[in-house]
């Protein structure tokens, strides 16, 4: 698939570098960021947004892209594995309660184990 990027030298600016820098610096252990690295990261992010949009379009019908299409892409393509918790499939409330109950049950069991250990 061809990767598009904003036209070079166009008047339209890309992502704000200051914002990208704040996000980068919020990562632990990052001290200094060279201007080249900041530029590269900003451009890479633009490409990523384009790429993800195009992938979602492949999964969607011709005219409009819905959240579901995006979730399909993220959960079917290994490259987007790191986004699985950011863009999960939607579930119904019924499914949510089921999930929650089963999680709570397992938590109860584990706390029971701890309780018996303490006593």
């Amino acid at each position, binding site marked *: 698939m061809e990767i598009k990027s904003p036209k*070079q030298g166009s008047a339209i600016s890309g992502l704000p570098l200051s914002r990208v820098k704040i996000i980068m610096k919020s990562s632990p252990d990052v001290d200094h960021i060279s201007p080249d*690295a900041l530029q590269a990261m900003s451009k890479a992010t633009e490409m*990523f947004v384009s790429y993800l949009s195009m992938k979602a379009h492949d999964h969607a019908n011709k005219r409009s892209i819905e959240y579901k299409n995006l979730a399909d892409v993220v959960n079917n393509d290994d490259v987007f594995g790191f986004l699985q918790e950011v863009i999960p499939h939607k579930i119904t409330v019924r499914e949510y309660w089921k999930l929650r109950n089963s999680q709570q049950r397992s938590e109860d069991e584990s706390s029971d184990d701890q309780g018996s250990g303490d006593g």
Partner: protein
Amino acid sequence: MAEKPEDLNLPTSVITRIIKEALPDGVIMSKESRAAISKAASVFVLYCTSCANNFAMQQKRKTLKDVDVYAALEDMEFENFIPLLKEQVENFKREQKGKKVASEKRKKAKEANANSPTDGSPNKPETDVEMKSIDEVDTSAHDSIVIDD
């Protein structure tokens, strides 16, 4: 760092524009999807930074460089971004170099004009060389500042 949580989001307007440019004309994306992509972009920056930082630390460097970003992208299996990205970053470097040369020129001109010993602070307002420095900055500034209508 004491950043606000909303500082970790990227501006919706820019994200929307990038999405619009990527899609064929007439295709629309729901607001919800756009918000999700915006969030994904933030996570992408974080993830990529973390990978890149690992490379920098391996090389025992404290400063993140563009090569680390390429290495991170390769690691994340986004290697198809790299050729175009390198091209764009090289362009950027060239631009920066041009600016640097211009500013050095300006500095030299300043030194020649004013023989004051308190030179070296570029932010210091110097009235008698101001006209000249503005003229010289102008030539380099034209490349980067384009007014959009």
